[in-house]
């Protein structure tokens, strides 16, 4: 529970492209997300003027990520599911505070364990050195 270490990324894509989004996000280091079904709206007049059809069925993918990898995830989403692709995705992020219920990632746990071991070793060496003196 600490302030602004995480960000939530919302990615709005055409229905059926949430898997593309999740794959891109996972490659960039995200762990999981939640998919919501939604309906998009567009300017009907503009649609007929430009002769394009906006698919109203959308999926919103909500991904909670560490603030450090936010840029990487957003870049991946822009490239793999951006407006130029079939998914026609829009992605944005919001700063989030007070995160609760996230289980630490295995690698992070391992890294923490290794760091703790190293610290313990250092402390032992320091004690030994102090004893020698």
């Amino acid at each position, binding site marked *: *529970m600490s302030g602004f270490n*995480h960000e*939530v990324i919302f990615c709005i894509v055409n229905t059926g492209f*949430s898997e593309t989004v*999740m794959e891109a996000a996972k490659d960039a280091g995200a*762990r*999981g*997300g*939640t*998919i*919501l*079904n939604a309906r998009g709206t567009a300017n009907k007049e503009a649609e007929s003027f430009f002769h394009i059809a906006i698919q109203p069925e959308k999926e919103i*993918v*909500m991904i*909670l990520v560490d603030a450090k990898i936010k840029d990487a995830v957003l870049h991946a989403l822009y490239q793999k599911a951006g407006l130029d692709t079939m998914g026609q995705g829009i992605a944005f992020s*919001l*700063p*989030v*505070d*007070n*995160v*609760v*219920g*996230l*289980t630490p990632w295995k690698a992070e746990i391992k890294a923490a364990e290794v760091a703790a071991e190293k610290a313990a070793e250092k402390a032992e060496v320091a004690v030994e050195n102090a004893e020698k003196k």
Partner: protein
Amino acid sequence: MEIEKRIRNRIVRGTRAKVSMNRLKILITVVGRAKADFYMDHIQSFGVNMQMVLFGQGTAPREIATAMGLADSDRAVIISVIGENQLQAALESLAEKFNTIVGGKGIAYTIPMASIIGKSIFNFLSDNRDAVRRNEK
């Protein structure tokens, strides 16, 4: 016109009313669908007056999902508006519930609300009952 002018002046001068007491936050809770009602009732007990629930699907890989005790991928996203005063208690109790309830694993986080318009709406969302009582007198 007069009011518009006054508001515009306030915005230009940066003297818009700032809230210093009980700022509002949006609390987003993602839990298994079966436990949605339980968590909504629980959050409501912290003086939350407005909640929305959206139904969605989780995307965590199977191994992690089962390790976390989530067999099916149906999720509920609960959006609640909560005052900062009650936030700490609510989050602590949610964290405890996530860790103890069988099949009740989930995540919760808050997004600070930047601005809101309407005094009565603010009082409603922040459960400010005193303000309403004062008005009635």
